[in-house]
């Protein structure tokens, strides 16, 4: 089947800090869109530390990798791994035995140029850090998704990354807050969505709750969006819909208890700056 949209989007998923959920986000948002029939390519640019193949459960299908494409050992088409569940989803694997300096931004741009006519969305899984791997990952993208956790060090890194994306002239930068625990926000022990938006000042694309089912689905190599009853799966699905331009309300995590309301009122009245 051909692609659905005229203009394709190349979206880099990045964070600065490692382990916040970039690869999980790429795997699930891509799967959700592929399930709706969009043609999707996911590109793993975490050269040397690849994980996207495992999270998508495609590790046994990998034959070639991106470096072999760049070095002319195979064609781009030969290297693309077709997903087993979604016929519209393809993955371009990272090389495991090389490192980030073995590719250049122009080579990523060239691959994306070749992918654009075939795919509606191209997602780039960016490695942690702000070095060469980051520069490669943002080189060909028209939009960026910054993933963070409600935790001071992740927010600090996200802020740094947003600054670097702005310097690189990105106009479209959106935030995904992953691993939110509403109960901890309520008890005053976790940064809230509003707190994060106040610090980072960018548009919110999604809120993904902490969910044990994420690990279970990773163990199986199955995207969590396939699990209709998982909260995280639902959240990733909502992100996919928002990327398609749909208006999807954000769940409210406001303080709803009476004591919470009284306490908030009291804090506003009495708390000193």
């Amino acid at each position: 089947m051909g692609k659905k949209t005229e203009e394709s989007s190349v979206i880099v998923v990045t964070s600065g800090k490692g382990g916040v959920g970039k690869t999980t986000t790429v795997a699930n948002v891509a799967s959700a869109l592929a399930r709706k029939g969009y043609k999707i390519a996911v590109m793993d640019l975490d050269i040397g530390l690849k994980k996207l193949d495992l999270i998508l459960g495609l590790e046994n299908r990998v034959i070639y990798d991106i470096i072999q494409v760049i070095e002319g050992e195979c064609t781009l088409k030969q290297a693309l791994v077709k997903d087993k569940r979604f016929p519209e989803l393809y993955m371009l694997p990272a090389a495991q035995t090389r490192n980030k300096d073995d590719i250049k931004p122009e080579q990523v741009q060239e691959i994306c140029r070749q992918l654009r006519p075939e795919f509606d969305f191209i997602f780039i899984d960016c490695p942690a850090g702000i070095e060469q791997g980051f520069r490669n990952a943002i080189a060909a993208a028209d939009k960026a998704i910054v993933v963070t956790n409600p935790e001071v060090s992740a927010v600090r890194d996200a802020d740094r990354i947003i600054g670097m994306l702005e310097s690189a002239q990105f106009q479209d930068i959106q935030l995904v807050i992953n691993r939110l625990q509403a109960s901890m926000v309520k008890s005053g022990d976790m940064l809230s969505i509003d707190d994060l938006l106040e610090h980072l000042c960018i548009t919110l694309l999604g809120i993904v709750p902490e969910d044990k089912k994420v690990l279970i689905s990773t163990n199986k190599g199955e995207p969590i969006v396939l699990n209709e009853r998982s909260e995280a799966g639902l959240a990733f699905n909502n992100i996919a819909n928002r990327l398609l331009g749909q208006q999807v309300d954000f769940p409210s995590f406001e303080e709803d208890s009476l004591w919470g309301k009284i306490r908030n009122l009291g804090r506003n009245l009495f708390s000193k700056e």
Partner: protein
Amino acid sequence: MLDFLKRIFADSSSRKQANDRLRVVLTHDRTGTSSRLMETLKEEILEVISRHVEIEGRPEVKIIREGRHSALDINIPLKGR
């Protein structure tokens, strides 16, 4: 009574601490400044100004945030004659 109310409602949660610390650290990260530098800046600005006019009260030199942009906010009360 008011003090008592203030005490029970004062927000000492770890969330508040995280927000306060982030506010400072992000401002410094974005502008390439530090608390130490701000102190030096304040001392030097006050020195220059007091060479010409008399300062009174509590002068303030701080960075304020507006969205992702920052500005130096200098408030120096001057003594009237």
